[in-house]
């Protein structure tokens, strides 16, 4: 418990104390800077507003694409379903900086879609915005790709659990498929729509790795935290980080407490029915419920996934090949992958060192997290306050990782405890904070989906003591969940950027290396490293699928 509090919970909340303890510093930097006045405060507000606009737009698109996709995955039966499912979830495990770079290539350079279409340039400018909204298109695309899995997975899980008999009943009662969706399914999946959206929103709000790569001049709140930390504007960074954490807390906690436990069905007010719009809706739905239209919708959504996820991966792979010896456009050897890795820029040692750092920190943090998670999952399931604990534990998953990184840095680092300086050990400590919740959640999922409680009680009635029971009965059954959680946490750790960049000091892991390369315009090296990172993750997932298939 103590270890848990110190390692996991404290860092999450430590940030809150900083602006209070160092109130003067914050006031000086944010509110009353003698040089720029409240310039920083205005920056904070504008950055926050921009982040909100971006994240809300991303969530709306997520829902438009995600609901049909979730439906297709939950109810459909077609060849390639597992493939589609894997593709949708891929962004959860691909290191985001690598993915961001792949998207950047795909949309804004001649190596991507533009080149395929023979345009001789990218089809988008990095700075292109959606007219009238100021939302950068590329950033939105990347955020949609990265957050879509949260919406799809949450909805899919809910739909799978819903008995399709209600849909059948509705159809035989004369409702078309769209009417059935509106009147029968929607009320039942609304809680899932809600929690999926919240997760996606929080994730988008906190996304750092990919966003830094594609951001151009616009910065989001999460990036601002990282930038300001680099510029030693700790006060402003902490203040903004705290606001981000608070917003996430405020969104997540009520939703979690409201929706978990209760078998939530929301009864929507009969707005449409009351206003007499019902008939208009019915007519429209009956027109749109034609089979052909529905299939068209599915095709569009699948196509969107292909564009968002598959093409960037292909583009980045293809580009590495194209750039291998030289820049294919100028023909200069200096622009080739080989030159940058082995020639004077000599990135290879950096990549190798980064790989070692990444794997070491991912391995150590996962290892420690597994040992913390098992008793935690047990506590959550056995005790009344478990539910609150579980909700609190979800926070590191959705809090902007740069804010979290800042919090651990402030807590362990020179400013407060002075125990650990930035570097690999701090990376490990930071990664533990979000690895524990991932593993705990998967263990709980397995636990609740199995009959372990039954076995445990049976073992107890047969006279086994609780420790014996846990060791001989529960642990073997939970192995599946523990392994899954460990692999998820390992890949997450490999790809994490936001927090890592803040706490890494001079121990640069591979995900941060990609960001550095892009910022120093070492494109071929970035290309190689992104591809390398993406393929390592995909290989891990593949191994993981093989390992779990056996069942």
């Amino acid at each position, binding site marked *: 418990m103590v270890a848990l509090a110190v390692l996991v919970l404290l860092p999450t909340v430590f940030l809150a104390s900083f602006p209070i303890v160092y109130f003067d510093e914050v006031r000086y930097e944010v509110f009353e800077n003698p040089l720029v006045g409240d310039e920083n405060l205005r920056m904070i507000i504008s950055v926050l507003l921009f982040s909100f606009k971006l994240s809300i737009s991303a969530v709306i698109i997520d829902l438009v694409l995600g609901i049909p996709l979730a439906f297709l995955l939950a109810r459909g039966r077609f060849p390639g379903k597992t493939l589609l499912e894997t593709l949708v979830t891929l962004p959860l495990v691909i290191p985001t900086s690598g993915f961001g770079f792949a998207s950047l290539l795909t949309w804004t350079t001649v190596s991507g879609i533009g080149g395929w279409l023979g345009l001789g340039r990218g089809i988008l400018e990095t700075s292109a915005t959606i007219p009238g909204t100021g939302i950068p298109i590329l950033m939105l695309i990347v955020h949609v790709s990265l957050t879509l899995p949260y919406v799809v997975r949450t909805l899919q899980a809910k739909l799978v659990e819903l*008995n399709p008999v209600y849909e*059948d*009943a*509705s*159809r*035989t009662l004369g*409702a*078309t498929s769209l009417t059935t969706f509106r009147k029968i399914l929607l009320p039942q999946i609304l809680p899932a729509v809600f929690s999926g959206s919240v997760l996606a929103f929080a994730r988008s709000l906190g996304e750092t790795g990919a966003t830094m790569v594609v951001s151009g001049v616009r910065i989001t709140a999460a990036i601002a935290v990282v930038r300001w930390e680099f510029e030693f504007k700790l006060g402003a960074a902490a203040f903004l980080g705290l606001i981000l954490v608070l917003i996430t807390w405020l969104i997540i906690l009520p939703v979690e407490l409201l929706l978990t436990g209760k078998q939530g*069905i929301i009864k929507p007010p009969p707005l449409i029915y009351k206003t007499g719009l019902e*008939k208009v809706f019915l007519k429209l739905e009956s027109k749109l419920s034609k089979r052909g239209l529905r299939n068209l919708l599915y095709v569009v959504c699948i196509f969107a996934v292909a564009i968002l996820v598959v093409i960037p991966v292909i583009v980045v792979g293809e580009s590495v090949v194209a750039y291998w010896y030289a820049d294919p456009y100028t023909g200069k050897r200096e622009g080739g992958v080989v030159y940058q890795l082995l020639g004077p820029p000599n990135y290879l040692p950096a990549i190798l060192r980064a790989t070692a750092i990444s794997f070491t920190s991912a391995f150590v943090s996962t290892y420690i997290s597994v040992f913390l998670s098992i008793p935690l999952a047990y506590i959550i399931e056995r005790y009344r306050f478990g539910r609150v604990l579980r909700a609190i534990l979800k926070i590191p998953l959705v809090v902007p990782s740069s804010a979290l990184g800042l919090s651990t840095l402030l807590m362990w680092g020179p400013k407060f405890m002075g125990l650990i300086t930035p570097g690999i050990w701090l990376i490990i400590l930071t990664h533990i904070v979000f690895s524990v919740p991932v593993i705990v959640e998967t263990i709980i999922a397995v636990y609740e989906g199995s009959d372990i409680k039954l076995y445990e009680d049976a073992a107890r009635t047969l006279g086994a003591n609780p420790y014996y029971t846990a060791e001989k009965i529960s642990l073997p059954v939970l192995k599946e969940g523990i392994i899954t959680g460990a692999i998820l946490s390992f890949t997450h750790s490999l790809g994490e950027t936001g927090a890592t960049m803040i706490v890494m000091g001079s121990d640069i892991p591979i995900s941060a290396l990609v960001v550095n390369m892009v910022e120093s315009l070492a494109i071929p090296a970035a290309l190689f490293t992104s591809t390398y990172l993406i393929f390592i993750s995909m290989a891990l997932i593949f191994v993981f699928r093989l390992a779990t298939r056996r069942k």
Partner: protein
Amino acid sequence: MPEVKLVNIVKRFGNITALRGINLTVENGEYVCILGPSGCGKTTLLRIIAGLLKPDEGQVYIDGEDVTHKPPEYRGVGFVFQSIALFPHMNSWENVLYGPTVKGLDKSISHRIAREIMRTLKTIDYSGLYPGELSGGIAQMIAIARALATGAKLLLLDEPLGALDPRIRVDLRYELRRIVKGLGLTAIHVTHNQEEALTIADRIVVMRSGMVEAYDTPENLYWHPKNLFVADFIGKVNVLEGFIKKALTGGKALVELTGGISIEVYAKGFSEGDKVVVAVRPENFEILDRSEADKPNLLRGVVTRARFMGDYYRYDVTLESGERVTVNTPLYRSEKIQVRKKGEPVLVRFDPEKALVYAYPKRGIERELSIEV
């Protein structure tokens, strides 16, 4: 007025063939039960009639119209589910109102329809309650009201009583038939309970492994089952093996059983020497005292088990041939009836007209009676 006609319906799920060429006509106003062991394709067939599934081959006609490719919402069919499936986020009233509403009927008309049907089914008192607050029987009645409120004249019921208490199950099945007949509907009712089918159906479809084995009235199925499987499925039978020893006059024949004893049965279309099976229902055996040993069709045996079943005694008797039979002795002439004990030697007898005779199944008796084909 609905008449349902199925022509050569085939349905596959991957490499399972759930239905292998079903041909069936249900007349207007008929109450038909589909009876068969679990997994034989009953639900699949019903879902195909409703349009919830599409057949891989064949056509569905309702009222003479080919509806094979029509979506379920336009077929005008009421479907009642084993799991009841009242919408959990609506109360009873809203559930019943759902059909008329999604059909786009005016509010006043929808309300009138819902009120009338709920009155007819005596469920109006439960209008305000949610599915979770209803007992199984009431909930299913509301589900039926919901199906009928759409104006459906064809009611498809998939094991509608399967989820209910045994006692309510029995009451409700007569109620079901009364409603269907009272409103002049056509009903197709799926069940795996043979007693349920026998007591309420006009005609029964016996299915096995995706095929129709028999389609006839309950009486005909009971007294003249087409084959050994149907005989055994509609009330159990005891099977005795033998061969035709001699044809007798009046459609009778003499059959010599395995144990060497000859018995008299009604059997047409066999020639001497044919291998046959004689099937006798447990309730058509009687146990005699030693003093009556001069009657025909007598078999000797020993009681190996005696069980009191409430309104009858069930005896397991091992015959001299080594074959085991079950004998049910009703209690109506009881009091004086002698209760047999385990180990007691007995005489077992049956009337020739109550024995069913079939050619010896080519694949053996065991396989013939199994639910697989």
